[in-house]
């Protein structure tokens, strides 16, 4: 059983860190459901 099975996930990525789509790919492989994903630019 994957560590995020049955979990709904909200993602806020960082342009100069790890962007939202990259985190989303990881979440999906861990069994999580992405309900919101966004990448923010803090600069």
């Amino acid at each position, binding site marked *: 059983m994957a560590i995020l099975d049955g979990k709904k996930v909200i993602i806020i990525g*960082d*342009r*100069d*860190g*790890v*962007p*939202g*789509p*990259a985190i989303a*790919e990881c979440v999906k492989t861990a069994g999580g459901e992405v309900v919101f994903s966004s*990448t923010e*630019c*803090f*600069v």
Partner: protein
Amino acid sequence: MNSVIKGASYVLAHTPQMVVYNGTTQTTERVVNPESEYLKELESHLRSYEECVNYWPNQVYIGNAHPDELAEVEFPYYDKVKEGAERFGKYGEIMPENEFLLLVQTCDMFEVVKLDKEFVAATKEAFVSNPIITEAIAARVEEGVELSEIEHLVNEEHAEGLYIAGKLVGCVKRAHDIDVNLSAHVMHENMMSKATSVLALLYAVRNTGIDAGDIEYVIDCAEEACGDMNQRGGGNFAKAAAEVAGLMNATGSDSRGFCAGPSHALIEAAALVKSGAYKCVAVTAGGCTAKLGMNGKDHVKKGLPILEDCLAGFCVIIAENDGVSPEINLDILGRHTVGTGSAPQNVIGSLVADPLARVGLKITDIDKYSPEMQNPDITKPAGAGDVPLANYKMIAALAVKKGDLEKKDMPGFAAKHGLTGWAPTQGHIPSGVPYIGFAVEDIKAGKIKNAMIVGKGSLFLGRMTNLFDGVSFVIQANTGAEDNSGVSEEEVKGLIAKAMKDFAETLMAAE
């Protein structure tokens, strides 16, 4: 033959009143939470002009100190004073807000900027005595209007007020009754961008020693858009700024790519010159009023001054190879493509490792990297971390992964191949380009042999794509004016003249 970088300029306009009235963090707060503690405290956190000038990162930006010197300054920087700080630097200046408003008025071609008569009378002498202000610009200063007229325009006609120390001294009028693209808000934003771009162009001409008439093309790479309801981003900031800066032989166009805009524009400029389309191209950008005080809430909360109180501008002059100036090597271009993906290793791979690998270079073969050069004094208190350092860690990690660097050498990578950030958070302004002025000097002095400029852009902010973007290029020492294996016009003329002379001599000998 590669194009060269003749030089660069970097300018700041200290605009604390625009922080209050035009920065989006503040204008948004005024709408959603007009009684907030932040708005009440804001003005007491604004820096004086002297404090802004004495600020280490600002002195580095205009060229009065090298980034290596900043790296020696104890962090944080906001409570330190740069000894010997000055308004003017070798790359540009820090213009006070009152003089800047006069510059804005001289950049206005449609009578949308109105200044109070008394304010103009009190400020004009200081403005026109600035050596960078040309006679033509000085002659454009208008006498001004009665304050009552400005009050009427602000209170009844939707004009954006212009303030000094909380006092209304002018306004920017709307340029159309119903077209939101020509509203006072948009006109204000665009006029400020244009004026800082003009200032950058003036200093670039001075710094490089070229004639203003030598510039044949200008590319504006800021993040604003000008046009009316039928062509919202029609442009053309570039030519508009060139007109005021007196670049009579220039045409131009605007290039956009969010924060990556300057890097895209510099590659385009280098290609235009290398192709022979234009001999000399200026890449310029003005500042962004919206971003003033962008992280102000965190700064105020932590008892810091509002550090995002300057509009910034820069200009880089690209010209034909002179055999001396550093070159832009168009054989080493990094690009984040549609198919690259967003994983950090893919991003850095496409921008740094891949272009180097294509020409057989390792990541450690580049002496200095200039990615996002945001001043950490601004970003760290706001929770965004040290952006340049984050980029260097990622580049170092990729270098280890590719076998270019020992894992034990990772901590030293940033110090050796990196720079401490000093640029204001004005979007496109800190993106790669702040180091170009120093890079040109460092390469000429033999301190470094090359540098990679990396620009990144957050395209997703425009809601047209979820994609990120970025491009990179390498600046290197001049390889010497190469023999282009062709024959120049002068040489052809010389050959014909010699042939005719020889022919004439044979005729004379025959007689």
